[in-house]
């Protein structure tokens, strides 16, 4: 229980960011929905079209909607210039505001449609202008219904805002995604409790305002409104009150344990050197690379094979040194990203099977596997089967599996143990390969490229000499054993370490 308390108390920053994001999204939703509702009440066609659009938006999964704003904003840079952020607050705000639109719009339109026609006739009969009718009659009579819509929108938005973590916006989703990654259920629970409590508090306060409108009790709705403003104000102060955060170094991490640990390792080093740092965790592979190119993040760790196949679209396979040199050159010429150096270990993709199964079936290489693949199930992380590396391996060996299944990276290993998967697309630096006694099948046709971990800097960060020299000692400092040990320390079932503690362990092992 103490762990849960500590986890909850450590969420102040995420809570403030979550409150601000949700409040801004709902405010934007209201600002769009209300004028639209007024227009819709005067035009049947607008009513139908706007409600159909809002309903359509609602059918898009929230996660996909958030992700879609990255390419949309990227293409909008042609109009608004390179300064337009493509990750973090802006796309999260836009996606969530779109999501909040439907309940507010629907309630406002319904409220207008259900106004007593006698009252409208009276408003016209006493000589009210359009504006007077709207302000003196329609608005006060619709207010309780609109408020009910805003309440629904608030609860949805606060829930969906946890997903903003995946596009690099700090939120109460941070502990949930980090906890899911490492099976740290205390973290997941803390994130869920915090966001659910926030939703309940918001619902209660907005409910107070709604009741105040309905019963025409000014004190009630003013009180509720004051409480909401105070809460948002406190969150604003917590986020921005403590001085400027302009020169924060933003460290990105993709959504798996090694990345979280390496981000902390880098962060701890930089903090020791006097830099202020901030983390953007749980980024998708392509998102992380684009974010570094655009300067939304300053530093992250990528892998040579990933850049080779995904960004450079290369299908051939070169020797290690030659590949690295070509990547460095390509990034300089095409994205402005600077590859500072290799960390010293490789985290390749490999196909892993349990040692007992491998021995029983006589599996040593992927060639052996291709003969029996038909009767087997292969598990991979959600990206794996879409990646060019998998397609290259599949085609090189003519692999035809009985079934393909997606798992989160953590659950993948459990699936292998429980027999739900016979083979998994594993990472060679994963501590669980040794811990679970797994065998990585050989790749005699060299279909998987090299996956040396490399330190990647955004164009702006690479011009910061102090930053570069602070990072330089990390180059060639980490061997695969040290990395596996640190990975296992957060991934194992018992006696888990936090990412920060694992990063300190790694620093110690690497002699940093």
């Amino acid at each position, binding site marked *: 229980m103490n762990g849960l308390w500590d986890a909850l108390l450590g969420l102040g920053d995420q809570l403030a960011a979550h409150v601000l994001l949700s409040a801004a999204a709902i405010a934007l939703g209201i600002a769009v929905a209300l004028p639209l509702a007024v227009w819709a009440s005067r035009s049947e066609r607008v009513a139908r079209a706007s409600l159909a659009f809002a309903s359509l938006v609602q059918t898009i999964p929230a996660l996909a909607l958030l992700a879609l704003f990255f390419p949309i904003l990227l293409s909008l840079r042609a109009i608004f210039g390179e300064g337009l952020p493509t990750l973090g607050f802006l796309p999260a705000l836009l996606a969530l505001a779109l999501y909040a639109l439907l309940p507010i719009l629907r309630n406002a339109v319904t409220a207008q449609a259900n106004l007593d026609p006698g*009252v409208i*006739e009276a408003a016209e009969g*006493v*000589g*009210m202008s359009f504006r007077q009718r709207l302000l003196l*009659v329609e608005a*006060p009579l619709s207010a309780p219904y609109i408020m009910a819509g805003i309440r629904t929108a608030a609860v949805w938005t606060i829930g969906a805002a946890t997903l903003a973590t995946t596009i690099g916006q700090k939120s109460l989703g941070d502990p949930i995604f980090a906890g899911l990654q490492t099976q740290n259920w205390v973290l997941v629970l803390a994130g869920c409790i915090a966001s659910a409590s926030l939703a309940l508090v918001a619902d209660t306060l907005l409910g107070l305002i709604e009741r105040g409108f309905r019963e025409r009790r000014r004190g009630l709705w003013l009180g509720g409104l004051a409480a909401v403003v105070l809460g948002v104000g406190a969150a604003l102060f917590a986020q921005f009150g403590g001085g400027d955060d302009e020169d924060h170094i933003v460290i990105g991490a993709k959504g798996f344990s090694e990345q979280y640990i390496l981000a902390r390792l880098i962060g701890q080093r930089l903090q020791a050197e006097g830099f202020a740092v901030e983390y953007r965790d749980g980024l998708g592979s392509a998102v992380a690379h684009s974010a570094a190119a655009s300067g939304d993040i300053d530093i992250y760790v990528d892998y040579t094979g990933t850049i080779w196949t995904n960004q450079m679209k290369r299908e051939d396979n070169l020797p290690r040194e030659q590949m690295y040199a070509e990547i460095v050159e390509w990034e300089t010429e095409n994205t402005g990203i600077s590859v500072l150096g290799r960390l010293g270990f490789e985290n390749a993709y490999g196909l892993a099977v349990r040692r007992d199964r491998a021995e029983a079936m006589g599996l040593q290489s992927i060639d052996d596997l291709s003969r029996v693949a038909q009767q087997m199930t292969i598990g991979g992380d959600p990206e794996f089967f879409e990646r060019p590396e998998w397609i290259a391996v599949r085609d090189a060996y003519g692999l035809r599996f009985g079934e393909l299944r997606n798992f989160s990276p953590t659950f993948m290993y459990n699936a292998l143990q429980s027999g739900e998967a016979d083979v998994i697309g594993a990472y060679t630096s994963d501590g669980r390969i040794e811990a679970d006694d797994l065998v990585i099948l050989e790749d005699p046709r060299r279909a998987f490229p090299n996956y040396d971990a490399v330190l990647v800097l955004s164009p702006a960060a690479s011009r910061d000499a102090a930053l570069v020299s602070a990072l330089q000692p990390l180059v060639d400092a980490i061997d695969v054993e040290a990395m596996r040990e640190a990975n296992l320390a957060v991934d194992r079932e018992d006696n888990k370490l936090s990412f920060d503690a694992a990063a300190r362990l790694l620093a110690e092992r690497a002699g940093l």
Partner: protein
Amino acid sequence: MNSPGAPALEFRDIAKHYGETSAVGGVSLTIPHGQFVALVGASGSGKSTLLKTVNRLVEPTSGEVLFEGDDVTGLPLPALRRRIGYVFQSIGLFPHMSVAENIAIGPRLAGERLSRQRVGELLELVELEPDMADRMPDELSGGQRQRVGVARALAGDPHLLLMDEPLGALDPVTRDALGERIRGLHRELGLTTIMVTHDMAEALLLAERVLVMDAGAIVADEQPAALVAGKGGEVAQALVAVPRHQSERLAELSR
């Protein structure tokens, strides 16, 4: 505003079509100052439509309406409606405003504040207690609400009072009392009043001139006594037959 010698209201060949159907077909009519006119007819005869062309809740397809000599389409809409009291069946009190706020709404729109005392006077005109001013509409009975509706229509000191089935939703006792009060107000305030009703008895007892409408046209224009005496033609007489039959039956019962 008042052109000397002009009648209170003049309709010149007013027609209103909704697509193919004709609600009012070319009505011409003059109503002098101070007259109490009842506009009677079955549902769909066009009487409400004709009434609403006066304060432009309905815009006629052709023809014009002159209010005290001025073409109503030439007057700014809010100003026109503030000069014409309007009372209708569904009353339409604003549920979020007190009785006093409801009564004061017309002057408020014109930028004037109605004094507490004036609200009290208006309530007394419609036979309500002045201390009702602070009640909300949902605390009133149907009859009280329509009395407030009448007070609201009178708040702007109109010369013309338009009433569209004002008593239609009320119980008979309330109906009778409020009808009498409206007639009294008409006389005391020197109003010109047009009341739309489908109830011929009401028309005969309250108005001094009865217009009968059928299929968008005025088919009879008589004084009540003349109608009772059998004038006005077939449609009018069919409507008069109802209360006549009722009173004969009542007379038989009392024998």
